[in-house]
C-alpha cells in the first residue's frame, strides 16, 4: 500500500513536467526561415532577406495540389540590420510569429558583398544555436534579395528543395563544387591549408537567357558560369560554376569546366560528359563521358625556394559522339584522340591553376599536400604557404584511356 502511494506521488510529480519547459513553443507559432539572403546595406551594414515557409503551399505533391491561388510558397521579407540576429529580432516585431532559423537550408550572399569580403555575419551562423553549419553557401550574381524574390522553380514548388537538388547534380555533371557548406568554408578560412570555394548562382531574365548572356555560342557546354548559359525556357535559376575566395573575400568565379578540373584535382570527380576538340578536325568536337580511373595524385615539393606543384590524373572514357566522322575505333586514331584529350585537359588544368595563383588563392588545396612535410605548426606558419603558392611551379600529367565507344564502333558517315 505504502509502495503504491509512493508511485502515485511520483506520477503526480511527473504531471508537472507535462506542461513543458520554458522553451516550449507550438509549431504553428513559428515562422520557419528556409533561406537567408544577405546583401550590402544602404542604411545599415547588411540588407537581410528571410525567406519563410508558407507550409500549406509547400504541402502536397511536388508540381501540383496543395493550397490554391497564386500565393507563393515562400514569404519574403527584407530588412536592413547590423547583423543576422539583429534582423531576426526586428522581424519578430512584425511577422507575428516566432521567426526561427532552425530549418534554414541555404545562405545566399550577393557577389557584391562577397567581393567586399564583409562576411563577418558568418560568426553568427557558427555561434547561433538555431543555425546549422550544414547550410549551403551560395554566392549570387545579383542581389540575394532579388535572387530569392525572382526564383521560380518549374518542376516543383519548394524552391529550397530545388536548390538542394541542384547541388546533388555535381556527381553527374561535375559543374558544381562537391561541397559548399558553411562548416567547410569556415574550417578552410581558419586552417589556411586551402581556400574556400562556394556555389555560384544567377537569376536570368528571359531575354538575357536567349542571348546566352553575351558569350560565344561555340563554347563547350561547361565553359559557362551561372547566368551565361545560351538557353531558352526552364527555370530562371542557373547554378553552375563556383565562387573562389581568398579567406572571406571573393576573388573570382569559375566556370563549370573549371570546376570540373578543380574536382579532378580535388579527387572529388565522379563522372561528367565533356566535349573536346576533334584532333583531326579542330572545328568539330568529340563528346566523351569521362570517369575517374584512379584517385588523383597531388604532391608538393617544398625543398626549393619556390614550391613545385605536381598533379597526376588518370581518367577513362566512353565516346558519346564524333561529329567529324573519323573512326576513332582504329588503334592509331584512338591513340591520337587519347593524346589530344590528355593535352586539352592538361592545358585547362594549367590555366585553372594559373588563375588561382593570380588570385593568390589555393582553392585546389595543394597546401593540404604540403602541410604533412612540416613537422610542427610553427614550421608551417614560418614557411607561409599563402605567400609561396602564387610563385609555385606547376606540373600536370593527365592519362586518359578510351574504354568504350558507345553502341556503335564506327561513326555515321554523314559527311560523305
Amino acid at each position: 500500500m505504502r509502495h503504491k502511494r509512493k508511485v502515485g506521488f511520483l506520477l503526480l510529480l511527473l504531471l508537472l513536467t507535462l506542461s513543458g519547459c520554458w522553451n516550449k513553443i507550438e509549431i504553428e507559432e513559428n515562422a520557419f526561415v528556409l533561406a537567408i539572403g544577405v546583401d550590402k546595406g544602404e542604411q545599415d551594414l547588411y540588407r537581410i532577406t528571410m525567406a519563410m515557409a508558407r507550409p500549406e503551399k509547400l504541402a502536397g505533391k511536388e508540381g501540383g495540389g496543395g493550397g490554391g491561388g497564386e500565393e507563393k510558397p515562400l514569404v519574403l521579407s527584407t530588412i536592413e540590420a547590423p547583423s543576422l540576429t539583429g534582423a531576426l529580432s526586428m522581424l519578430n516585431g512584425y511577422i507575428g510569429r516566432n521567426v526561427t532559423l532552425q530549418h534554414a537550408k541555404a545562405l545566399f550572399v550577393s557577389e557584391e558583398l562577397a567581393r567586399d569580403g564583409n562576411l563577418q555575419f558568418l560568426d553568427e551562423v557558427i555561434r547561433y544555436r538555431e543555425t546549422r553549419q550544414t547550410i549551403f553557401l551560395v554566392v549570387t550574381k545579383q542581389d540575394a534579395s532579388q535572387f530569392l524574390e525572382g526564383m521560380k522553380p518549374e518542376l516543383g514548388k519548394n524552391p529550397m528543395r530545388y536548390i538542394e537538388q541542384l547541388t546533388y547534380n555535381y556527381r553527374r555533371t561535375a559543374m558544381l563544387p562537391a561541397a559548399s557548406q558553411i562548416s567547410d568554408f569556415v574550417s578552410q578560412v581558419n586552417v589556411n591549408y586551402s581556400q574556400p570555394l562556394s556555389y555560384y548562382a544567377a537569376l536570368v531574365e528571359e531575354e538575357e537567357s536567349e542571348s546566352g548572356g553575351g558569350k560565344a555560342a561555340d563554347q563547350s557546354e561547361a565553359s559557362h558560369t551561372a547566368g551565361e548559359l545560351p538557353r531558352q525556357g526552364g527555370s530562371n535559376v542557373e547554378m553552375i560554376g563556383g565562387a573562389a575566395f581568398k579567406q572571406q573575400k571573393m576573388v573570382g568565379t569559375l566556370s563549370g569546366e573549371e570546376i570540373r578540373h578543380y574536382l579532378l584535382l580535388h579527387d572529388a570527380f565522379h563522372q561528367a560528359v565533356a566535349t573536346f576538340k576533334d584532333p583531326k578536325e579542330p572545328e568539330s568536337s568529340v563528346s566523351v563521358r569521362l570517369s575517374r580511373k584512379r584517385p588523383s595524385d597531388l604532391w608538393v615539393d617544398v625543398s626549393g625556394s619556390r614550391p613545385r606543384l605536381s598533379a597526376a590524373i588518370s581518367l577513362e572514357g566512353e565516346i558519346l559522339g564524333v561529329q567529324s566522322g573519323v573512326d576513332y575505333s582504329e588503334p592509331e586514331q584512338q591513340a591520337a584522340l587519347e593524346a589530344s584529350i590528355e593535352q586539352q585537359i592538361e592545358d585547362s588544368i594549367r590555366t585553372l591553376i594559373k588563375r588561382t595563383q593570380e588570385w593568390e588563392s589555393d582553392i585546389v588545396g595543394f597546401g593540404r599536400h604540403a602541410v604533412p612535410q612540416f613537422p610542427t605548426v610553427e614550421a608551417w606558419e614560418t614557411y607561409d604557404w599563402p605567400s609561396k603558392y602564387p610563385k609555385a611551379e606547376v606540373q600536370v600529367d593527365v592519362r586518359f584511356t578510351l574504354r568504350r565507344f558507345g553502341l556503335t564502333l564506327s561513326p555515321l558517315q554523314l559527311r560523305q
Partner: protein
Amino acid sequence: MYQYEGHISRREGITLIFAVLSSMLFLQYPQFLVEVGGPAGWQVALVMTLGGMATLLPVIALIRRFPGRGLDQISKAAAGVVLGPLLTLLIATWLLASLVLSLRSFTETFIVTILPDTPPSPVMVMAVLCALYASYRGLEAISRATQILLPLIAGGSLLVLLFSLPRVDTSLLFPFWGHGLIPTVTGGLYYASMAAEAVVILAFGYAFRDPNDARSSGLVGTLLFGLGATAVAVVLVGVFGAPTASQNPFPLFNLARLIYLGRFLQRMESLIIMFWVFAALVRLAVLMHAATVTLGGALGLPHYRPLLFSLSVMIIPLALLPEDFLVTLRLDRDWLRPLGFAVLLIPALLWLLAVIRRKGGETDAA
C-alpha cells in the same frame, strides 16, 4: 563503525570508471586537448591516457594492500587517526568540487545548446534529484544502471563519430607533431589529471571482493576512456581543423549537428542529447556517491545517507557560484585539474606511509 554497502564485480568496476571518465568527452575536455596539441591533439590524448594510468598505480597498490576496505579505513590505518581523516577529507573535497563543476558544466551545455530560456536552477535540481536517488539506492544500483546505460552512451557516441568520418579531412591532422613534442608531452601529462576522477575506485575500494578487480577497473576503464578521447580528438580535428576545434566546448554535439547524409539522416543532435543526459546523470551519481561516502567516512559518521540530503542542497548554490560559463571552464582547467594531481598524490603518500609503518598487506594480517 562506518557501514559500507554493496559489492561490484570487475566488469561493473570497468563500466563505472569508463562511464565517469568518458562523460567528460561530451564536455569541454577534448577542446582542452586540441588547445594544447593543435593538430596533434590525439597525441596529447594518448600521453594523457598513459599518464593517467601511471598515476593510478599508487591507488591500485593501496587497494591491494588494504583489500575490502574503504578510503577512510585505509587512511586511518596508513596515516593514523589524525592525518588519515584529514587526507580523506581532502579527497572528498576534491570530489565535491568535481561534482559541483560537472553539474555546472552540464547545465551550461544544456542551456547553450537546447534550453536557452530555461533558468539553470531547474535543470540542476532535476539532475541533483536523480543523482540523489541513485546515490541513496547505493553503489550496486548505480553500477547496474550504468551497465544498462553505458552501451547506449558509448554506442550513440560511436555512431556520431562513424557518421562524421566522411567529413574527416586527414590533412587537417598535420603538421604531425602539432606544436612540437615537448608541448604535446607536457600538455598530455598535465591533462593526465583528467583521469583523477578514477580515484573513486579508492572510495569504492571496499566494494571489490578481489583487489585485482579494482586494478582492472582502474586501468582498463582509464585505457578505454583514453582511446575514446583519442578517437574524439582525431575526428574533431579532422572535421573542424585545429583552430576551430580548440574553440569548441561541445564537441560531440557539434559533430552530431554536422551529420548530413542527404535528406535521410540529419539532425542527429537530438539523439546525442539523450545520451548526453544519461552520461551526465551517471557521472553526477557516481561522483555524488563517492564524495558522500568519503566525506561520511572522514567525518566518522555511521552511514553516508544522512549526508546525502544536506550535500544535495549545498551543491546547487555552489554550482551557481561561477559567474559564467568561461569562469567554469577556467576553474576546471586551471584549478580542478592541477589539484587532481594533488588528489592522486594522496594515495601515493598513504601507500608510502603504509609501507613505512608496516600497515596493511601481509604485515598487517600477521
